[in-house]
């Protein structure tokens, strides 16, 4: 089986003179569940924006030999790079099935768009099973619970046939049980996808991250396993100030990381 990977080199994003991302190198392999952390303003979401076409950037970001920078959002999506947003952005007026079917359809032939959907497509069926939304297929997405909306977004990424998945704070606002289910879902998904998760939730990170990249002030501060990163004094410093025990430490400051 072919190994896919995302390769970012010297990525730089600036707005009106303010440099949000300053020369980031990042390589993520398939099967590696990568978490991207860092304090507010570190440039995490901007990095995702740049790679998915939302923010103009210089440098290079390639996937499958294709240069992503400079392409339009929909072209990048078609090249196999998908993303979710911090606030679940599903189509509230459409049903779960319709949401997934649209996500699955970008490569459909134009003419087939003019017909109504016949049977439920296999990939959509599979995605509903993977995300546990099968029973809700005719429910308008606007009526779903918060966690279910996030799962629907992930499901949309799956049927979209994206190989690189960027998830922006997927478990924010979820209950403990929903977090656990999301984590399991991500583990299932990472086997044949390149998965990058932007997340602040350290418990979640510790439980599910294969590797972690720490961003600070637009640059990569540290990279490695959770334990390696946690032990890095520079990471401890930017997160909790001098003398603390690193991002995983228990206590009231823990949530302040958000």
């Amino acid at each position, binding site marked *: 089986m072919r190994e896919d990977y995302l390769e970012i080199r010297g990525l730089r*994003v600036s*707005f009106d003179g303010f440099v*949000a991302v300053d020369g980031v190198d990042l390589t993520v392999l398939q099967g590696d569940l990568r978490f991207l952390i860092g304090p*507010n*303003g*570190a*440039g*995490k*979401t*901007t990095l995702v*924006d740049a790679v*998915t*076409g*939302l*923010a103009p950037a210089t440098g290079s970001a390639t996937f499958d030999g294709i240069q992503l920078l400079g392409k*339009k*959002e*929909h072209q990048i*999506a*078609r090249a196999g790079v*998908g*993303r979710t*947003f*911090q*606030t679940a*952005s*599903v*189509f*509230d*007026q*459409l049903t779960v099935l*319709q*949401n997934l*079917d*649209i*996500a699955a*359809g*970008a*490569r*459909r032939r134009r003419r*087939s*768009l*003019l*017909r*109504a*959907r016949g049977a439920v497509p296999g990939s959509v069926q599979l995605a509903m099973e993977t995300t546990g939304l099968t029973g809700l297929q005719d429910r*308008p997405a*606007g009526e779903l619970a918060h966690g279910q909306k996030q799962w629907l977004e992930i499901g*949309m990424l799956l049927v*979209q046939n994206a190989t690189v998945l960027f998830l*922006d704070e997927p478990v924010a606002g979820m209950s403990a049980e929903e977090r656990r289910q999301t984590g399991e879902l991500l583990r299932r998904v990472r086997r044949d996808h390149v998965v990058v998760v932007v997340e602040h939730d350290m418990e979640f990170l510790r439980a599910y991250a294969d590797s972690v990249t720490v961003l600070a002030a637009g640059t990569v501060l540290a990279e490695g396993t959770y334990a390696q990163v946690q032990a890095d004094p520079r990471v401890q410093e930017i997160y909790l100030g001098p003398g603390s025990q690193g991002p995983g430490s228990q206590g009231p400051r823990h949530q302040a990381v958000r």
Partner: protein
Amino acid sequence: MTRRWAGSASVLSGYLVAAVILFGAAPVLLSDFRLRLLAQFLCVAMVAVGIGLAWGSGGMLTLGQGLFFGLGAYIMAIHLQLSDAGPAGRPAFMVTGSGLPWWWELFRNPVTAVLGIIAVPALLALLLGLGVFRRRVKGAYFAILSQASAAAFALLLISQQNTVGGSNGLSNFRQFFGFALSDPVNRRMLYFIAAGVLIAMVAAVHQLRRSRYGELLTAVRDGEERVRFLGYDPALVKVLAYVVAAVFAAVGGALFVPIVGIISPSNVGVVPSIGFLIGVAVGGRATLLGPVLGSLAVSYAGSTLSENVESLWIYLQGLLFVLVVAFLPGGIGSLGAALRGRRRAVGDVPGRSAGHGPPGRPLVDGGGPERAPAGARSGGV
């Protein structure tokens, strides 16, 4: 599966009822004068069907449909004038001595005239649509531009006294593709054509709405930015609906000409363009039948009232806009549902969808310091 069957049965019976009323009951019950009036309303309703698709399903507030209505109408009028004048003849209103404009000659042939009625507005809508949608000009910007285009078109027509009759427009048509317009039988035929075309348009929109394209169009309406990240170009999705709406308006205009007997700039400017919207809003913009029924009802109310007190109708028209759009954005059809508080019907109202957001607000996601740049490209209206 059973639900689908039940659905298609009720759809079929719906079309049957419409056909019986339009083809059976109306011609029998109405006087020739009233039937002609109804035919005129049907033409206006064609514009409304297109607006229902573009605005109701697609969220594009087309404030300038008079442009396309006028294009269709004037091309038809030019053709009728030329066929009245006979081969190599010229219409009476033109100043003698000046030559026939070259673009008149294009529409002398009945086939090119019919083709032109469809192709000219379609091409213009394609160009305009791609121009604005590609650059992500949407919402209020789009509405204002389309309104300005109708205004400019009307002014252009007024200035062309010698080629399209200026503010008087074109009138006094004697025949319609060889059929004398003075013959009541032919007038009746025109009515039947209008009724048939309208039903076909509703059926076309029906198919578009239930197709995957229709779902995609709604998705673009409610989350244009999100659709991009699924690998679609929203500009192409929107432009199709816009072109369909333009062609429907043009066909409505083309049939309006022989039925009413005159077309002038006052039928195509800013005021009539917004006028097309009232019926759509009243009937329910996001529904299949709302635009048609609303448009017919408003046309009927308008002609009945202005026969008596014209100023009263203008006040009422204004009031309708205010009341329906402000307090009943789902249209009259949602009134019962709104009273009963049923969630589903209210859910059909696109009033609070993303496309209607205020300018400058990021459409994709919430703020946060490192998010500010996202608004740079997605935030504009």
